[in-house]
């Protein structure tokens, strides 16, 4: 379970995240939507303890991140936006390495099977990652996350730059993980993917979580309308300033 209480992050006078209260339960996919600088990545970074909160608390399975940063990592898998991996290592070696850091290094056969299960072609498994497309690297990232068998997953713009097929495959994998009771928090710009994959959707604007919705209670065109209106308000607010 992922949870924040009154979470705020300020950079000098600029408020990147303002009083965020968020909760993602096991089996939920919470998609954070918003323009660049809305606070989506800041939220993910605070969950990951990459940065320190100005005030408020972040919890992963009831463990407070600021107090028990290392312990929370056992319950957490993460896929960053630009996952480059190690170009000189193969997909298999990358998976074995990262999975090994997270716990037990999987055997070759197990790791190969895992890579195949996320849709990586057999002939690519032993190729060096520098020859991979972004979609293929992202699949290795998912395999790394799956290998960890964590009950929470954080995704920062995971589908940016993926072709529609790869994006669809990715969504399918997320749904599988949701069925396995993983709590997923995903920052994305992709309204369609958020509506189609997420169980909950949050719209962020200038550090505030403005709307929280259940995805099955809103249609895609309504979501788009709401999103655009929210962004427009933002524009007006900026203009008024």
């Amino acid at each position, binding site marked *: 379970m992922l949870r924040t209480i009154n979470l705020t992050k300020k950079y000098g006078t600029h408020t990147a995240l303002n009083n965020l209260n968020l909760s993602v339960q096991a089996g939920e996919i919470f998609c954070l939507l918003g323009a660049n600088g809305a606070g989506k990545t800041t939220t993910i970074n605070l969950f990951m303890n*990459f*940065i320190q909160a100005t005030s408020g608390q972040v919890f992963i399975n009831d463990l407070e991140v600021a107090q028990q940063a290392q312990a929370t*990592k056992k319950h*957490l898998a993460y896929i*960053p936006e630009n996952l480059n*991996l190690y170009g000189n*290592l193969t997909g298999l070696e990358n998976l074995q390495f990262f999975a*090994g850091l997270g716990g037990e290094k999987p055997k070759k056969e197990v790791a190969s099977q895992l890579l195949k299960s996320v849709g990586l072609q057999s002939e690519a498994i032993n190729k060096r990652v520098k020859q991979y497309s972004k979609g293929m690297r992202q699949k290795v990232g998912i395999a790394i996350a799956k290998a*960890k068998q964590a009950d929470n997953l954080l995704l920062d713009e995971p589908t940016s730059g993926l072709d529609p097929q790869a994006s669809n495959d990715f969504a399918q994998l997320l749904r599988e993980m949701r069925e396995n009771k993983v709590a997923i928090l995903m920052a994305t710009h992709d309204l369609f993917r958020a509506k189609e994959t997420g169980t909950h959707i949050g719209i962020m604007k200038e550090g505030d979580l403005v709307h929280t919705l259940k995805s099955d209670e809103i249609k895609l065109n309504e979501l788009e309308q709401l999103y655009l209106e929210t962004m427009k308000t933002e524009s007006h607010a900026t203009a008024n300033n």
Partner: protein
Amino acid sequence: MLLLIIKKEILAALRNVRLQIAGIFLIALMLVAVLLGRQGQQLIHKEREKAQSAMYDIWVNQGMKHPHSAAHFGQFAFKPKPVLSFLDVGLDNYTGTSVFLEAHKQNEILFSAAQDSNAMIRFGEMTMALVLQILLPLLIIFLTFNIFSKEREEGTLKLIYAQGLSMRQLFMAKVWATYVMVLAIFIPVICIAYFLLDYQSVSMDPNIGLKFIGLTITYALYFLVFVLLSVLISAFAKKSSISLLSLLGLWIVACIILPKATANLADKAYPTPSQFEFRNTIREKVKNGIDGHNPRDERLNALKQKVLDQYEVSSVEELPVNWSGIAMQAGEEYTDKIYDREFTRVENIFKKQNRLSEWVGFINPYLAIRHLSMAFAGTDFDHHTAFARAAENYRRAFVKKMNKDMELNHTPGIAYGDYNVGKEMWSSIKPFAYQLPDLTSILSKQWRSVAALVTWLLGLFFIASIFSNSISKI
């Protein structure tokens, strides 16, 4: 986990063509330096041994003559080439190789390699020490400059951290991974060097095995200092380009600018007299006395009176011993006293210069390793003065023996040309044999450099343990 990271770093480096080429180039360079150095060391050592033996033969076979003439005929002392000098030639190219030993005079040690070489020797000979002290740190820089920053730029640092590894654990893992790679280059070559040691010359170089181990350990510590420093800079640099520029800047300052600046500073702080001044001071003091109030004539008259009183005679002609022999030995001893004072004075100036450079080792680890490397190899200033003192002691002993023979056996009344001795006398003087200082003596003189290197290591580990957890992941 540590092993996993070490394995991954090595695998990634082995698959990096640029690093492969740099590593192979460096190994080849070290092998060439070791093989050529060893060949050169053996050749020079044999040449000097041969020359020493030939000169002694000439001494023994000089024929019948007066002992004082033999003292002027003189002998040569050749500086043996230390066994480990093939690893670090040190000051050997600039200090002389042999000295002519004769009565009344303390000659300079002449014929340095630099005298016979072109200006290129100023840039340093291609030795193992040059590769290890200057070029291997460059490889360390290329191995480490982006070891953190690239991970940060490519997002893998976040992923590693997400797996539950602390930045401190990752920092140490990267340090040991780099260190293993450096040792993988260094150890095989140093092992080859060990098997190439010239065991025929070991007799003149005590504790050679321990000195070799000391040299190896010292270099291993030096590399660890460089690895820690480089990984630290990479960890805190925002970009790989900044890290590379910072490290290269540091390398230039540490290996090129600071050593020159330190040498200049030492020379300005403790100026050394010229050879002419040194000789002139001795000449003046011999002539006028140490304090300027005891000229040679007065000293000689006082000695004569003392000898006459001792034998209860009124003139030197009545003495049962040869007055000239006594006077010459007294003159020798007085000159020796002045020479020792002046030599020690100049030696102390050089020592102060060296000490200053050793203290700078606390700022610049390159200077610490340079001093230690030369000391273990037997090519530093202390080894040179040890040879100079050994040669001078030998000169004094054989001149004294000549003077004593003259005093006791060249009885008054016999003309100078009528008293001659031969081979038996010359053979009674044993050939010049010199042993290099042992390990204890080296370590007692080099404690500052050892302390500097250890301080660097402890300091860097301390800094790493405090700050490594605050390494930025994004």
